[in-house]
């Protein structure tokens, strides 16, 4: 028996602006599938980041705001406190979440805000031209780490999830990836779990998704997926980091 793959109802039928092989389109879709499955399209309010996913509201068929760079969790906090019964999630890249918005994400987590965070980590600032991010790997060349990222000059990759794990207000952290069909399914499960935790009012949860940026990694989409599997997961191991639900 064959099953036809259809577009999720909460996803608009438009072409996306993402580069070929980019992980954002995939992760957008997973979010929409979960929203459809748990039937919350009409009570979802998303906050999109500044970065490649800034136009998420063009693709998602539910209420979506766009926040200033890094302030995404603060904006989500404002919404959720006004509408505690709605599903409020942020969708943030590594520049947004791990650099300019470090303060906002840590404090939203520490307050135990009942929000879900989808943290897309591709290790570069894609939208602005492939600059170094806090999550860029040691030895990786970017527009602003021309001689590769050297710990003595550029510091180390920032492991946000491991940092967040110590916060009592944070109840669920899982790092997933989209480099293989199996990994994609694990990502979807994690997003669903995060949303359900929120709907059960259990506290702050976050899913970090390792994602390819073929354009600024200078690799083909296939090679990008291989890089995640071989290199990126060494720095950012997959799996549940915290689950106290």
């Amino acid at each position: 028996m064959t099953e036809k793959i259809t577009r999720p109802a909460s996803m608009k039928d438009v072409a996306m602006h993402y580069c070929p092989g980019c992980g954002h389109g995939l992760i957008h879709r997973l979010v929409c599938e979960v929203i459809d499955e748990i039937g919350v399209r009409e009570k979802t309010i998303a906050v999109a980041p500044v970065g490649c996913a800034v136009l998420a509201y063009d693709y998602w068929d539910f209420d979506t705001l766009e926040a200033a760079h890094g302030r995404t969790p603060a904006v989500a906090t404002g919404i959720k406190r006004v509408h505690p019964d709605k599903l409020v999630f942020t969708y943030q890249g590594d520049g947004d979440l791990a650099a300019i918005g470090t303060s906002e994400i840590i404090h939203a987590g520490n307050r135990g805000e009942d929000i879900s965070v989808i943290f897309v980590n591709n290790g570069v600032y894609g939208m602005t031209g492939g600059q170094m991010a806090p999550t860029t790997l040691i030895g990786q060349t970017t527009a602003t780490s021309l001689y590769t990222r050297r710990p003595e000059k550029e510091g180390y990759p920032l492991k946000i999830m491991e940092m967040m794990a110590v916060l009592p207000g944070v109840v669920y952290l899982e790092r997933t990836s989209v480099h293989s069909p199996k990994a994609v399914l694990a990502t979807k499960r994690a997003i669903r779990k995060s949303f359900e935790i929120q709907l059960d009012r259990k506290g702050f949860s976050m899913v970090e998704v390792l994602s390819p940026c073929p354009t600024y990694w200078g690799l083909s989409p296939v090679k990008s997926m291989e890089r995640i599997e071989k290199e990126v997961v060494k720095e950012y191991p997959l799996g549940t980091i915290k689950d106290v639900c």
Partner: protein
Amino acid sequence: MKYLSTGNEACGEGAIRAGCRFYAGYPITPQNELTAYMARRMEETDGVFIQAESELAAINMVFGASAAGARAMTSSSSPGISLKQEGISYMAGAELPGVIVNVMRGGPGLGNIAGSQADYFQATKGGGHGDYRMIVLAPSTGQEMFDLTYEAFALADRYNNPVMVLADGMLGQMMEPIEFDDNIKPSGIVEKPWAMTGAKGRAAGSIKSLLLKDGVLEEHNKKLQEKYTSMAKEVRCETVDTDGADVILVAYGSMARIARECMGILAEHGIRAGLIRPVTLWPFPYDVIRGIAAKCPRFFVTEMSAGQMVEDVRLAVQDDSKVSFCGRMGGGVPSVDEITEQIIGSGKKKI
């Protein structure tokens, strides 16, 4: 009922009575009583109070709460307001209502914690990036801290725009009697069909300030400018004894109270002084001042700054009148003597 209240607390009560359901702030002197007051009153009225991790987070929480449809407010003092400018610009861009209170202190930089009026430029000429405007209300008494904050919410909702209440440290911390009807209800409540509430029974909505497509941002800006033009009708200004005056004093906020005292002293010296007190600093009462300038050639502006509003007064009077200025900076307050001596002195010189 009559209450004895600090200006900061009067401001907080004005917000509560206006139906403010969300407050996010961050401690900074000299507005801390306001944040503490909101912490207590929000709990009592089942609203939301959050002590944010920074001013940046506070204004962005207000952004979110406002987008979600609530009447929302934040408050701070000068250095903190500088940090909030990013969010204010975003709110203006996304056309979100909200009230921002600035209880000014001495600057620039960390400055000091004394009252000041040195953020006039920042409040009235933009502050954040982009071509935007916001209504700036300047209370000069504890009563007005209540009244104007109460009204600020209706104005914000009327125009879907941030509104600033611009006070100073003296006004914030001074205790005065204030009076209001205990049964006062929020005014100017409007439907907010654009609010982010989940797309139940309607198409999905979005709130954003990014408009990339060719010419779309320019069109948006044109629309915003038309809105700002329509805000001109909100101009408010108090005038006292301006008919037949020898000299017109122009001052706002705390300085207007000192200017009032000067009027009496000047009268003793045979100088008839009138007062113009802008209540809205933006829109600025250019027409009122221009009209009075046509009849009185001497203007005297006094501010707790190096002279910021004086530029708008000069723009208003054009070449008809001579505009003198007396100001002190960094928390200094021009005294009645300083002001009157300067006016009497310059009057003599002229004779």
